[in-house]
């Protein structure tokens, strides 16, 4: 780094300014390309009918911000229902996934254990292939999970990648710590619960977030396994109303004496509600995701 700055100092001032500025322009533009759509979606969800009509659809800043769209969407109906489904799937699914991933990663974290190598191979090999759409469907059907919430959880409950991330963390725990517990008479389960889990809170939180994001975003599993629209998670509802442009008004209960909020605002409100959980957890995710993913890919 020091050398980089030294060579930079040796170049003429004009070139340095130009050098710095085209880089800034590219980076600022890239960032704006990500930010502006978000701003516009959020702004439109708060805009009123007059502004939307005047602007022709989308706005970048709501002049008379109103919560009418959110009140309408959250007062009941299919959107609220789907949010509840998604929250349920995410909470229950993440709990199941994290518990079984911890168990699997812990079981694979001791290289001299019985059957270690074949078991590890079984887990690693799943990274190389996917069973395919139709075989997965037949499996879920065979287990009688079609049209149940379990179909959105169990088939995707374990991700080998997350197992590897967690395993490599467990393997870095100092052996002395585990030996000390063993001398004190702790068995493997007690060691897991009293030593391994408490010192691995960070990686467990990261893996939990990975799973939670995957469950919240799950679209494919629901499309495949759920026919009953009342069981749809929020992503399918977003598809129906925003991507396929089905009218939202019919689904939104209107309070007496109120006009329905503009279609565009309702749609954007649905979109915002489906993104908010991700945005809330993003700072945590962002902090750990890359390091976790990297350690997994390199050590795995």
């Amino acid at each position, binding site marked *: 780094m*020091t*050398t*980089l700055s030294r*060579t930079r100092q040796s170049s003429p001032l004009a070139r340095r300014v130009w050098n710095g500025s085209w880089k800034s322009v590219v*980076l600022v533009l*890239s*960032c704006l*390309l*990500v*930010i502006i*759509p978000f701003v*516009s*979606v959020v702004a439109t969800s708060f805009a009123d009918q007059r502004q939307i009509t005047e602007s*022709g*659809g*989308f706005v970048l800043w709501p002049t008379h911000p109103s919560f009418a769209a959110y009140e309408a969407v959250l007062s009941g109906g299919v959107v609220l229902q789907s949010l509840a489904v998604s929250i349920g799937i995410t909470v229950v699914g993440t709990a199941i996934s994290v518990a*079984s991933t911890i*168990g*699997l990663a812990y079981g*694979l974290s001791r290289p*001299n*254990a*019985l059957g*270690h190598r*074949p*078991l590890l191979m*079984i*887990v*690693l090999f799943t*990274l190389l292939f*996917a*069973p*395919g*759409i*139709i*075989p*997965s469907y*037949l*499996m879920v059907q065979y287990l009688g999970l079609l049209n149940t919430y379990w179909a959105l959880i*169990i088939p995707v409950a*374990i991700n080998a990648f997350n197992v590897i991330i967690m395993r490599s963390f467990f393997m870095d725990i100092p052996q002395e710590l585990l030996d000390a517990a063993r001398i004190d008479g702790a068995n*493997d*389960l007690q060691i897991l619960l009293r030593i391994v889990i408490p010192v691995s809170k960070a990686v467990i939180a990261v893996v939990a977030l990975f799973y939670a994001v995957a469950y919240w*975003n*799950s*679209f*494919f599993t629901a499309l*495949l396994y759920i026919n009953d629209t009342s069981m749809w998670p929020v*992503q*399918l509802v*977003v598809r129906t109303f*925003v*991507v396929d442009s089905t009218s939202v008004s019919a689904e939104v209960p209107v309070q007496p004496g109120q006009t329905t909020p503009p279609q565009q605002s309702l749609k954007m409100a649905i*979109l915002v509600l489906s*993104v908010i959980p*991700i945005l809330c957890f*993003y700072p945590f995710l*962002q902090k750990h995701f*890359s390091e976790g993913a990297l350690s997994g*890919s390199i050590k795995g």
Partner: protein
Amino acid sequence: MPQTGEPVVLERTVPRPTTRPAEPEADPEAPAPPARRVRVRARWRRDWLLLAVLGPGLVLLVLFNYVPLLGNVIAFQDYQPYLGIENSTWVGFENFQVLFSGDARVTNAVINTLIISTIQIVVIFPIPLALALLLNSILAERIKTVVQSILYLPHFLSWVIVVSIFQSMLGDAGLVNTWLRSIGADTFSFVGNPDTFLALVTTQSIWRDAGWSMILFLAALSAVDQQLYEAAAVDGASKLRQLWHVTLPGIRGMIVLLLILRLGDVLSVGFEQLILQQDAVGLAASEVIDTYVYNNGIVAGNWGLSAAVGLIKGIIGVVLVLLANKAAHLFGERGLYQS
């Protein structure tokens, strides 16, 4: 692993993971040479709790990754859901014959898949690398962090959200066209237009995932030994030469790793991304192998034929990963795994 016994014996004595979890009551009473048997028993007594903890996760993993592979047998059947696998007629290779005789829809799906995949590797792959190099040359740590966090965010959004956002921005009633209309310019039809679909899909993929790949490259860049740059500078290497001789060789491992992962996915281009937009642009432009399997199999009920397509796709995918990994070894890289 010095204490490990013969793998063959282990496989026989460890409770079969495909069928049941390693429960304590599972009995490791396989006939084995007495000495070894004692050793395995001793290790079983020592490790059964560990294996029991591992059990539920392993069962889930095997149940939904390996067991479904058996379902591929319907590729050799005229499968009817109401008859099930046991009672459907076996038709041998008939489904495969239909495929290889040049079914128009399959051909279209294969061609679209290859086009989109090629574009994704050729166009999309270098962009995050360029962004990472650019960001890496910025010295202010703070700017780096902010830019990273912003560019990386879309990776966590589902395709439903990404497609929705693109429609809201670039659709006929979207922000850009509205603005063009307001200044009296011509609008352009980008969303829902088969002619521009490839460009749209590419843009979406870049928007969503460039930041994510960039982070991986940045991490690899930070691991490059800084002394190499100093040595190169002392030798009079220009910035460009430093890039070519120090930076790129330093992150070659990561580039190869990401390329291998991409190659394995060559035949599975974003199912969710495409299926979401099929109604708007039509199948001619947007049908790929995965969406064909879904549309023709699960929706239209041609189970056997679609399973055959999926089976071939899966086999080619595994072969490609293995080949790419082999190639990586030949070029002296670690690749995805080591044999």
